[in-house]
């Protein structure tokens, strides 16, 4: 065991955990005042549920020994994290539990990312049921495909996932497993749930862009754990990933802002925040395989492409409310394919892409990996969404949607700025009334 590596992986896991509350702010600021709490609760619900499922069986499905064809790990091997507690259980140079922690927060944020596509209109209970099933049949297996390396997590002779080992696509920190996966799922759910009431007609302005900016800042901060932490060590690979993550993100924000300035006349704060996230998404799969100048180019393209991609929903007529498709799916596809173009053997991954004389073979592998995750996630999510819609219902009543999901789903209002409302207060909702004399000193 290497204590330096362990310290970095544990710190990275905490950084990545903070990304989900950061995402809650990023998404929460973009919706209207009547649905900000529900928007944030979808992220916090994922935090609560997926952390439990991960410990119970999620880690085992993702990182247990392969059951065949590199598709899914053995769900019983590490059930309840059995057998992983001792110091002797190492993944690379860190205790298995540190790796469990680090990968857990990836599963959480992937689920939370989907929620942006179905803002303002999803039943909270159904969202929670969806989250648990989706993580089980989509994320955990796909994490196995992409993150489980032969002989790394389930014993020396163990077999890992097909994309990481058989195909040999490079996805350092989850362009496919996290972003294409969440983006395709978001598109599927947006189609199943349908458009919000008034979509394309009523103004649905972001209610608090300062929250969005804070959220984007927390995402950027946490993403250093996401990408540099994926080195699973405190080493040069982590340092390269860190610098690439910084510079690609800066370039993407510039790309988005320049696009807006030329196209719409103004560089906007929402554009800056969105460009930051687009850059972070795009550099995620590629941060170990490009040099910093390549990362700048990659980020710049991501910013420009995603700034145009977020307009697709109006042309094609689907209500991906907060642009999970335009930012995560499109950014994830670009970042994953960009490895095939911009990878250089000088970078830690040691592979040359098309622009560095490596030919098209890596690009082909990248395309297969990206396409497989996209199709699997979209199809399974669409079917799962339809089943939930037909059985327990996925969409709230129109009346509740128009008056606001916060009140309907959670019996809360986000803001009490004008405290002119009157009413009565009861300390508990039970029938026992508490007087001041009865309260123990």
């Amino acid at each position, binding site marked *: 065991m290497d204590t330096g590596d362990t310290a970095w992986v544990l710190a990275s896991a905490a950084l990545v955990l903070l990304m989900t509350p950061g995402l809650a702010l990023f998404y929460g600021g973009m919706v209207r005042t009547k649905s900000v709490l529900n928007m944030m609760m979808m992220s916090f619900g994922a935090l609560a549920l997926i952390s439990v499922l991960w410990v119970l069986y999620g880690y085992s499905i993702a990182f247990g020994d392969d059951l065949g064809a590199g598709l899914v790990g053995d769900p019983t091997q590490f059930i309840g994290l059995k057998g992983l507690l001792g110091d002797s259980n190492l993944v690379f140079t860190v205790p298995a539990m540190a790796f469990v922690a680090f990968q857990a927060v990836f599963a959480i944020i992937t689920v939370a990312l989907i929620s942006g596509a179905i803002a303002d209109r999803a039943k909270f209970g159904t969202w929670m049921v969806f989250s648990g099933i989706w993580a089980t049949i989509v994320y955990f297996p796909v994490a196995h495909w992409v993150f489980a390396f032969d002989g790394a997590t389930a014993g020396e002779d163990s077999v890992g996932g097909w994309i990481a080992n058989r195909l040999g696509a490079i996805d350092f920190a989850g362009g496919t497993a996290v972003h294409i996966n969440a983006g395709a799922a978001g598109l599927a759910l947006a189609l199943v749930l349908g458009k919000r009431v008034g979509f394309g007609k009523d*103004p649905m*302005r*972001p209610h608090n862009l300062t929250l969005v900016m804070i959220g984007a800042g927390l995402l950027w901060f946490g993403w250093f754990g996401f990408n540099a932490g994926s080195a699973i060590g405190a080493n040069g690979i982590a340092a390269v990933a860190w610098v690439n993550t910084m510079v690609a993100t800066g370039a993407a924000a510039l790309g988005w802002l320049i696009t*807006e300035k030329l*196209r*719409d*006349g*103004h560089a*906007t704060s*929402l*554009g800056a925040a*969105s460009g930051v996230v687009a850059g972070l998404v795009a550099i995620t799969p590629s941060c170990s395989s490009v040099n910093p100048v390549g990362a700048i180019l990659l980020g710049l393209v991501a910013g420009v492409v995603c*700034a*145009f991609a*977020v*307009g697709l929903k*109006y042309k094609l007529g689907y209500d991906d409310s907060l*642009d999970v498709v*335009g930012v995560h799916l499109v950014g994830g596809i670009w970042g994953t394919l960009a490895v095939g173009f911009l990878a250089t053997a000088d970078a830690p991954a040691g592979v040359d892409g098309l622009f560095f004389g490596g030919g098209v073979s890596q690009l082909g592998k990248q395309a297969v990996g990206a396409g497989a995750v996209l199709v699997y996630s979209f199809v399974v999510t669409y079917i799962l969404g339809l089943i939930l819609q037909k059985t327990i219902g996925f969409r709230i009543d129109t009346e509740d949607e128009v008056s606001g999901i916060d009140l309907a789903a959670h019996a809360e209002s986000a803001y009490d700025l004008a405290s002119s409302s009157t009413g009565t207060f009861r300390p508990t909702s039970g029938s026992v009334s508490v007087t001041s004399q009865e309260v123990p000193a």
Partner: protein
Amino acid sequence: MKLLTAIIKPHKLDEVKAALEAFGVQGMTVSEASGYGRQRGHTEVYRGAEYTVDLVPKVRLEVLVDDADAADVVEVVVKAAQTGRIGDGKVWTTPVDDVVRVRTGEHGVDAL
């Protein structure tokens, strides 16, 4: 007595308030309002999508005045609030039957 209601641009509030104080007006009520007249709204752009915002922020200012002062106070407000550009707002007066000062119970002009 008359109630003067003025809908003005928010950034002109301080000037209007100062002008009214200089005239001798002792109190006023100010609230945030939104609306539009010939100015219509304005355009905002979020992720490339344009939103036309119909209702623009305004300040609504209300002052109770004696009949004799009403015309002068209207002039004071109009002069202070004017920029000459579209969207400056409107000022109007309405007759008031009675006014009571809650603290003392005084009625009419004494309560102003």
